[in-house]
């Protein structure tokens, strides 16, 4: 969950940037038994965020379809990706211009990647 807080911190540094944020919570660890609580959801409080609960890890599976090498454990998680303006998801999940994991370690690179993506 420190990753979520790290993303919130990056968003605060780009508070006025035209961004959409998709937060997908999925069960990965043995302790992920139930839908994330309000306390967990509050970790990312930026109003530009939309939060989802993906109990069957469908998005992870969809992303894996586009990868030549499956991720460790067969699950895409604790990852953050950035898509520039204009990118559309047509047949396959699109490739990001930046991705990093674990999120807590990728937060600084995420912050650095945003100005280029947000440039007009």
């Amino acid at each position, binding site marked *: 969950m420190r990753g979520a807080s790290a993303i919130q911190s990056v968003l605060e540094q780009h508070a006025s940037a035209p*961004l959409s944020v998709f937060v997908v919570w999925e069960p990965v660890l043995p*302790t992920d038994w139930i839908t994330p609580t309000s306390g967990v959801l509050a970790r990312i409080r930026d109003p530009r965020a*939309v939060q989802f609960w993906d109990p069957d890890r469908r998005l992870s599976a969809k992303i894996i379809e586009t990868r030549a090498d499956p991720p460790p454990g067969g699950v*895409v998680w604790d990852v953050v990706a950035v898509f520039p303006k204009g990118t559309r998801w047509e047949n396959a999940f699109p490739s990001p211009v930046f991705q990093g994991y674990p*999120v807590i370690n990728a937060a600084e690179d995420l912050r650095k990647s945003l100005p280029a993506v947000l440039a007009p």
Partner: protein
Amino acid sequence: MKRGTLTAPLAALASVAAALSCCLPFGYLLAAAGLAGAGSLLEAGRPYLYVPSGLLLVVGFARTYLGKECRARRTRTGVVLLWTATAVVLALLVLPRWVGALLPRYTPAGQPPLATLSLPEFQKQFNDAAGRARIVTLLSPT
């Protein structure tokens, strides 16, 4: 702090706990159910909260059905509470998704309500936001 300074209050606390456990055995049961309930809210701590819940229930059953050192009567209320607490703990343990689903989930102010992910809907929202840069993150709740 001198040893006596610390042990005296600890002994007093232990004595009170022992007395309460004898006269009010269903205190254990409320604690058991409470710990299990807290476990449904505090995901990361759940395994650690269920262990004392189970132990407290065992103590409750022992006090109710096996206890001989107490003279307190086994009351109908106590038995009902014991089995109610057991049902609550088992429900939280065995059916956490269903029990957890009963709890409200609130997203922070300004965000839409939490949605269960549907790929077509997610894809639509992703494409609808194509006029802006987007961040997508996949996270574990704990």
